[in-house]
């Protein structure tokens, strides 16, 4: 006799597909925010399944800080070609050149916060009314309060204290001209779920997630990759280490961990045994207790 219940991964998959189809039904011009990281790759994979055998009906929007891992860009371009989807790029460099934002200075300067302006400009310029993201509630305490359908006012801001109640599976995406929504189909997934799903579905991910030899500097408790943007401090030295990345952001702020996990199976085993959160290696979250909440209110991913 067959069983009439789903295992948790099937249930999460089913929920995410439902959310993606709601987006398509409720919005005029939705896009997937694509960073090249595993979460947005999983969302894209789910979107492919949600509309099969039709093509994925969303454009992919990438906010390009200019401080990329070259591997991420190569991965992005090949994925776009395979999907036959449209790519929209918002360039932080352009925002700087136009004087919309000013570059941070100093050793710990990053373009992380500058992305907010570029992202909101790209959303406005392309008349996007819904940006689908790979954010998960287990990532960070501000994200734990995020809705599946999250309203943004006409300045792109999030008001965490005045969120729309979200009951059952009834998603209210109604909005006025100029406002938009952020939608998070994998809200209920944990890092472990994402990895188990990637393994189960055999989803292609950038080589950066697998253990590889790289030149790195020890800074803020993690291995920061050597790149043309890295400003070395006195006393810092370049090491050659076998590392991999648990999350992918800008090359300037994404720290690697020492690892021998060079297959998906080994990564899943390693993640299961981890005693640190994945964002523990992201210096963008370490700036203050409420770094994520503050950026999210302004319009961050």
């Amino acid at each position, binding site marked *: 006799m067959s*069983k*009439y*219940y*789903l*295992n*948790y*991964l*099937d*249930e*999460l*998959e*089913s*929920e995410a*597909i*439902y959310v993606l*189809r*709601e987006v*398509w*039904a409720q919005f005029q011009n939705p896009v997937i925010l694509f960073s090249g990281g595993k979460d947005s790759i999983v969302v894209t994979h789910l979107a492919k*399944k*949600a*509309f*099969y*055998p*039709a*093509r994925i009906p969303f454009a992919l929007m990438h906010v390009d800080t200019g401080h990329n891992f070259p591997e991420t860009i190569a991965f992005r371009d090949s994925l776009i070609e395979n999907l036959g989807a449209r790519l929209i790029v918002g360039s932080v460099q352009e925002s700087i050149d136009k004087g919309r934002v000013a570059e941070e200075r100093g050793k710990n300067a990053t373009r992380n916060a500058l992305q907010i302006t570029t992202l909101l400009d790209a959303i406005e310029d392309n008349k996007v009314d819904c940006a689908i993201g790979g954010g998960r*509630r*287990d990532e960070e*305490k*501000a994200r*734990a*309060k995020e809705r599946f359908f999250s309203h943004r006012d006409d300045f792109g801001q999030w008001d*965490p*204290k005045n*969120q*729309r*109640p*979200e*009951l*059952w*599976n*009834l998603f*209210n995406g*109604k*909005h006025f001209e100029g406002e938009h929504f952020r939608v998070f189909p994998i*809200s*209920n997934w*944990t890092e*472990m*779920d994402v990895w188990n799903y990637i*393994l*189960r579905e055999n989803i292609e991910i950038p080589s950066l997630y697998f253990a590889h030899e790289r030149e790195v500097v020890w800074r803020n408790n993690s291995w920061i990759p050597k790149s043309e943007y890295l400003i070395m401090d006195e006393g810092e030295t370049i090491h050659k280490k076998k590392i991999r990345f648990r999350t992918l952001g800008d090359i300037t702020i994404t720290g690697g961990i020492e690892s021998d996990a060079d297959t998906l*199976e080994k990564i*899943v085993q390693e993640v299961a045994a*981890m005693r*640190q*959160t994945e964002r*523990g290696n992201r210096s963008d979250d370490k700036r203050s*207790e*409420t770094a994520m909440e503050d950026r999210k209110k302004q319009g961050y991913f």
Partner: protein
Amino acid sequence: MKIDNSQLLRFTTAGSVDDGKSTLIGRLLYDSKSIFEDQLEAVENTSKQKGHEGVDLALFTDGLRDEREQGITIDVAYRYFTTPRRKFIIADTPGHIQYTRNMVTGASTANAALILVDARHGVIEQTKRHAFIASLLNIPHVIVCVNKMDLVDYAQESFRAITEDFEEFASKMLISDIRYIPISALNGDNVVNRSENMSWYQGAPLLHTLETMHISSDINKVDARFPVQTVLRPQSKEHLDYRGYAGRISSGVFRPGDKVSVLPSGFSSVIKAIDGPNGSLEEAFAPMSVSITLEDDIDISRGDMIVRTNNQPEATQDLEVMLCWLNNKPSQPRAKYSILHTTNDQKAMIKEIVHKIDIQTLNRVPADGELQMNDICKVRIRTTKPLMVDVYRENRTTGSLVLVDDATNETVAAGMIV
């Protein structure tokens, strides 16, 4: 590597800071080893700064800046943990009277509700309110955690008195499965590990209960309902004539060959194929997201519902609803709202408020014409077009709805069809 077959259980916890709710969640996360070292370190530092002895487990559930400053929970927060047996999603909701709306939100998708009772104070009005909401939202399982047993010397008599009290008033409600567990969240008694201080308690600790309770029957598998979300038309060479109706099965089971009707038009056809996320299926059941193709070409669009011809929901424009008002702005008499029900988006008017529930006494009281934030009322609603509905008690998906204020686009009310 084997992909495990464990199920997902969603539960909600209601209670205020004083009940030890945050401590209980912190304890579950901590003892099930779901806390990471950097999180633990952060909480240890904050505990020290605040001058607490040891680790304040409640800090694990801290959220937004305002909440940390005021030391209260404002909104629903979601937490996750996994054991070898199950994956859990906790909807952590504040229990103060003014946050009824958040409790209702957290309860809407839950398989189980944890209700905390302070062993020193016994069943109080707040406890009754939480039980009432669990009953109203038809949460299949309720677990009463009698907390702070350490403060009553782990006395069996205190526990027994509370379970008797709870049984008495809960007998007037529609809760089918209630369990009682004596715990001390602070010391970890009967949370993850069996307590050595209460040998008189023969039952399972909380986590074991959550891991093993039967939840496969929580979803209605009898009445086949499939609200259409969108239509898939690839219009590619390989799939020239493909016309798939995409949606998530609300309840019941569908198989190719089933005789179905499409509502509200009433046209009937036969299911040709069902495609799931991993290819075609011999049968599909709730809550699977699938795409259904039919033998006949019928005009079907979003908002329509595919059902088995011999088991149909009621199509009606007049609804009797238990409504919880969620918005600061009170309802206006005879005001029109958008009504969201399954994949339908129609207009509706609240024609009449039948009665209000006094959330303190749980008695019915006459309505005074206006619905205020956190009010729970029985109302009559008229919609512009028929909706395909079931009673909420029998179907949490086709029996639920929300109202949206067209002037602000905010979700202002949640309703359960009676």
